[in-house]
């Protein structure tokens, strides 16, 4: 296998989005530019469930990962720290939680 320079996820994906899945769960969808970018991401340790759990500071094992090769997409779902709309929650719809994924090196 040839050594590749790491690339930031945002350069390999055209949609990186977050949203609530009900008020207790957060879900992150990443749609990669093409099959090669998807393969690179799906095979990367940086996007393993445990790595994403660490990135979002949730318990290891709390992140579910779904691979959707036909869509060149990877989805992650995890529990929210606060139920949506609880005082202290700063993102009612969970729509601005995608930031940490953008910078992941693949």
């Amino acid at each position, binding site marked *: 296998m040839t050594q590749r320079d790491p690339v930031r996820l945002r350069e390999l994906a055209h949609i990186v989005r977050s949203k609530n*899945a*009900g*008020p207790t769960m957060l879900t992150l969808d990443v749609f990669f530019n093409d099959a090669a970018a998807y393969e690179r991401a799906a095979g990367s340790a940086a996007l393993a469930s445990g790595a994403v759990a660490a990135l979002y500071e949730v318990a290891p094992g709390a992140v579910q990962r*779904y691979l*959707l090769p036909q*869509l060149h997409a990877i989805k992650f779902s995890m529990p929210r720290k606060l*139920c949506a*709309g609880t005082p202290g929650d700063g993102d009612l719809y969970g729509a601005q*939680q995608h930031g940490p994924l953008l910078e992941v090196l693949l």
Partner: protein
Amino acid sequence: MNAARRLLQGHRPGDGPLRVLSASGQLGYGIPEAAFARGMARKPHFIGADMGSIDPGPYYLGSGEMAAPEAMVRRDLTLVLRAALDAGIPLVIGSAGTAGARPQLESVTALLHEIAREQGWSFRLATIASDVPADLVVQARQQGRLAAIGPMPEPSDDDIRACSHIVGQCGTETFARAFETDPDVILAGRACDTAIFAALPELLGYPAGLALHMAKIIECTSLCCRPGGRDAMLAELDLKGFTLESMNPDSHATPASVAAHALYEQADPFLVDEPGGTLYLADARYEALDNHRTRVSGARFEPRAQPTLKIEGARRLGARAVLIAGIADPTLLQVLDSVLEAVTAKVRALVPGDWQPVPHVYGCGAVRPLPAAQRATHEAGLVLEFIAPDALLARTAAAVYKQNLLHHGYPGRVSTAGNLAFPFTPGELDANEAYGFVLYHVMAGAPLTDIFRVEAHAVGGRAAEGN
């Protein structure tokens, strides 16, 4: 005979596809008229419109107020009513008035009566009340029949009884009961988004898996298209699959855009739990018919032995006041957390009572946690909420906090004239009541037919037919 019976007696699945028009994913925010008119020109068999969600947070369920402005709700209701009555087809509206609680169902029912009176229309309405008595939930909790969906703190019996409203999401089986009253229009309290669109196809004999999958996609109208939008969406359902088509010619349903929609707001892209069973999407197929339409097939539904009930409940936490200010001093930005702690202690000594400050420091981790190196060093926005049993105490705490933070001396301070930049006066604002979700649970063994009460009403001048 009214619209529901005409459709149920007049259409057979073998006759040709069932045309289902989704008018709105959120009735009350302005249904785009041109696409809706194009949809009506396609002679749909019925119109569906979702009106609510749990998404806007606990306030609307807790308070019983509508999220959408009443003038726009009236506009949108008039639009879909006129179209359905002119065409003589059923209109199905779900999650009345945002959260679908009793006051919201009553508000929207009253609007329907008013519109009918103003326009001189008459029709037969079936309403579905979705409120769940707290005692039933307490009993279910005590008997171990209540399970949280995701991480919800376990509610006490008192928490449950403190909910101002508890609603259950009705499914296709409840809509089927409402259709038995032969309505022209159904207005449901809290309802599964899918049930609005899947109930009639199921009653007509279409496969439940296809009907629910179709419903799941079109309930958001053209959001599943590229570019996505809010325009009316038409589905043509047959016994083998369904075809999706946006009524905006510039918004295209492609296999990729439709398949991607299966991920939207959904924790698991392959499984969708419905009250009556589980929808399996892993074998779903998406094929382009042309560059505007996509054909979908392959979804499977497995019924469960006993339908379950998803319930939602919110309770009042107190009144809320909000203090808004900017901070641009680099030294203060570095020590802001400890300054807020010190000022909180100072104000606690000055303002007795059960008030709670909740800081949101924009630029320093209000939206998502930020490491120290990424926090704002130029300026940050301070939004401090104060929650107290009454509005006067919340506002008092906010005002005293404001003045103490403005003049707080911290180590290294050079800006001794003041710490805060106010964009307006007063800097503290009343901000409604604060609510929190107590229930987002599944209740097993719920008496669905007792909970979801179906009522038939004659609206407008004409005496109701049927019954």
